[in-house]
């Protein structure tokens, strides 16, 4: 079997206090991966901290949002011939020791997307009540549309194979955010697997979700989902970048 090139993408917005530690931990726990920090237009020295920790860095000229930062990582992976991309959050909530478990189904079982779930097994991650209700709802709707049980649609800890990387990198106008992304990928015929992961409490910095966003999110989600369902199915683009 040919060796697999794996890229860990860490989207980071003003995470200079955490990003270095996360990069180092990823390198320690998974020495076989390359690490790319996508600095999403930070105003602190996130990029310098990432470089100092020995990561590759792509710095966006202004803040595009978490999702576009991740997508920048996919474009990088697509153009540089990576086979697998793993998204890890810069705030240190994901456990780099679980990267192996996230990658295995892609390499050994031919899955295109492996989604880390906080709720597939009870591992003591506490979620505020309203957020939990929301997550349940998104999971239920996503499962119904995909015809496959998904328990956690908002956890960012995921791995993607080549076909998924190409989808993300080359459909510039499509929104692959969170569960809607899963729906787009599932409709394109990609195979999705969920595995249980552990998510830590935040080490520092603030959560990316503000109150207003939390209020708008469900509407945005349903609207995006409807948009995806009425549009033509996307197919996996072939060939080189």
């Amino acid at each position, binding site marked *: 079997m040919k060796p697999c090139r794996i890229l860990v993408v860490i989207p980071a917005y003003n995470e200079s206090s955490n990003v270095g530690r996360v990069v180092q931990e990823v390198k320690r726990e998974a020495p076989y991966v390359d690490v790319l920090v996508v600095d999403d237009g930070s105003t602190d020295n996130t990029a310098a901290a990432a*470089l100092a920790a020995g990561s590759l*860095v792509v710095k966006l000229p202004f803040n595009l949002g978490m999702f*576009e930062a991740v997508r920048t990582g996919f474009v990088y992976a697509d153009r540089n011939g990576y086979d697998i991309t793993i998204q890890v959050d810069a705030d240190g909530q994901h456990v780099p020791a679980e990267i192996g478990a996230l990658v295995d189904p892609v390499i050994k079982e031919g899955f295109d997307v492996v989604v880390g779930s906080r709720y597939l097994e009870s591992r003591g991650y506490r979620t505020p009540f309203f957020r939990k209700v929301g997550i349940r709802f998104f999971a239920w709707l996503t499962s119904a549309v995909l015809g496959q049980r998904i328990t956690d649609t908002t956890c960012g800890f995921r791995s993607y194979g080549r076909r998924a990387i190409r989808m993300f990198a080359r459909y510039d106008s499509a929104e692959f955010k969170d569960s809607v992304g899963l729906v787009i990928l599932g409709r394109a015929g990609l195979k999705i697997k969920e595995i249980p992961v552990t998510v830590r409490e935040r080490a520092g910095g603030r959560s990316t979700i503000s109150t207003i966003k939390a209020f708008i999110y469900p509407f945005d989600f349903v609207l995006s989902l409807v948009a995806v369902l009425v549009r033509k199915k996307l197919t996996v683009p072939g060939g080189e970048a």
Partner: protein
Amino acid sequence: MITPRVERFAIAISIILILIVLDMVRRRKLRERYSLIWLFVVVAMTVLVAWERLLLSITSLIGATNPSSTLFLFGILFALVILLHLSNKVSDFSTQLRILAKEVAMLNAQLLQVRGAGSNPVEGQGKRQRSEEGQG
């Protein structure tokens, strides 16, 4: 009813608008493509005002009682069309801007890699950051 006075007033406004649009095109403040939609709107409104029989028949066609409401309706409709057109453009632009931002970021990273080949890339990035801060 559209009185001759209202008609003169409306036509005067139309002419002023047309002049403003043409002047903006002349000074390159407005692209020809966008001026077209505005000129079309102004001309259409002028025709509605000046051609009373057309206005009256449209008024009875849509069931309005007063010709001036027909004028208002069309004015609002035209404004809505232009707004929709602009929203469409803004959507396009934001997609293009996102793509461009990503391309710039990728090119910048490549440039740093090429420049940093042989020397310490960390130092290179640090310097660039400091000089950026100096400018800002």
